[in-house]
């Protein structure tokens, strides 16, 4: 295809969500290698430095996004668009992001409070998804984070999550204190 670059640029620009290499390969009906090469050339052309927007790798795909630091300016445009998350919601999201698949009981044990309402809100905002049912008595639902979660925080994939800080105020004697395992948690409930 003569204008592969043009078509890929248009696809990424016009899509609502990040487009993966696979998706772009299907859409353009071109060899994957060629698509990859073109995307890479676009990536280097749309570097963030000095620009208002750039080509970002996010949620397993590619998407044009404004560069960081524009927030304070662009705030004027985005009145109600922002997803405001409460501290309780962020805490719940953090637990599920790092421990997925996680059950509601697990979240509640770790937070020490009923978390049903918060989880419902996160599900409504499409930040969580149901992963199925756990193979233990009672078959509780298992939750994980959604692709939209990655988009919201600009993460390429779950491996992109910053590692959890080891215990703050680290005490050499306490290093043996392992984080609680889901198996242990199950017993508590």
């Amino acid at each position, binding site marked *: 295809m003569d204008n592969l670059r043009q078509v890929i640029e248009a696809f990424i*620009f016009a899509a609502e969500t990040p487009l993966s290499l696979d998706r772009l390969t299907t859409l353009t009906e071109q060899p994957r290698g060629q698509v990859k090469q073109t995307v890479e050339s676009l990536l280097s052309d749309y570097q963030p430095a000095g620009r208002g927007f750039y080509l970002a790798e996010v949620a397993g795909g590619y998407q*044009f996004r404004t560069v960081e630091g524009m*927030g304070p300016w662009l705030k004027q445009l985005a009145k109600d668009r922002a997803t405001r998350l409460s501290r309780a919601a962020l805490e719940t999201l*953090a637990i599920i*992001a790092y421990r997925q698949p996680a059950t509601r009981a697990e979240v509640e044990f770790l937070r020490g409070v009923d978390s049903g309402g918060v989880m419902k809100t996160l599900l409504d905002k499409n930040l969580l998804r149901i992963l199925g049912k756990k193979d233990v008595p009672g078959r509780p639902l298992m939750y994980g984070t959604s692709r939209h979660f990655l988009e*919201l925080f600009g993460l390429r994939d779950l491996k992109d999550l*910053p590692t959890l*800080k080891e215990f703050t105020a680290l005490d050499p004697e306490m290093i043996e204190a392992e984080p609680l395992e889901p198996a242990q948690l199950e017993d508590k409930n």
Partner: protein
Amino acid sequence: MAIEIHLKNFTGPLDLLLHLIKSHEMDIYDIRIVEITEQYLNIIDQMKQLDLDIAGEFLLMAATLIHIKSRLLLPINDELEAEDEDPRAELVRRLLEYQRYKDAAEMFQQLPQLERDVFTSQFQLSNILDGDDMSDDVAIGVYQLADAFHRLFKDKPPEVFHEVVRESLSVADYVAQISHRLAEKKRLSFREIFPGKLGRLELIVTFLATLELVKLRIVKIDQVDDFSEIWLTLAVPADQLPSLSPEQDLLAYG
């Protein structure tokens, strides 16, 4: 020392405890349990005096603290001591684990967030494509599916549903169903009265119900030309429908 504390500022009892430990400059691995329990109970008491609802979780933690305190105060039994771990250990583990996720939450808060710190193009594909309005499309997942089903029942009390299905051939039910649909849609064509593939009996009962509605002057029939569409409209205000609809036993067909 008077501390201005409102429970609503804390996401839960662990959050409150961490705050107390920090503000009293305690070592999390060596919590002064007597002091912290006292502080914690004071706060709960203050809230009670203000007649505020205290979530059960905060009370549960109070009980846990008292329990730990009592165990620490018990005379040490040498034989048991060897096996028993520090009564505070479990609480410390929970606090440490909770602290990690609290930190992670804080970190999430600082990540550049879409629509808050970074933005994507708002270009609308439908602007350049004819008749391809996709604004109605929703992301799908198991949750969305369950939610969609749940919403249907929230809008429609299940009782109505039972009655109609169990006695699927009662004229009274069809009368109610048709007038309900008319109240919603203002106007229905004669064909729309018979949705989908109805069985013969259902067709008959639906037709009888329509006639009944006309006889009761609840529904008006219009036709512009011979053989053109027949239109049904509600002849009474929708809010009067419940009082007008015939009782089951008033209809001879049953």
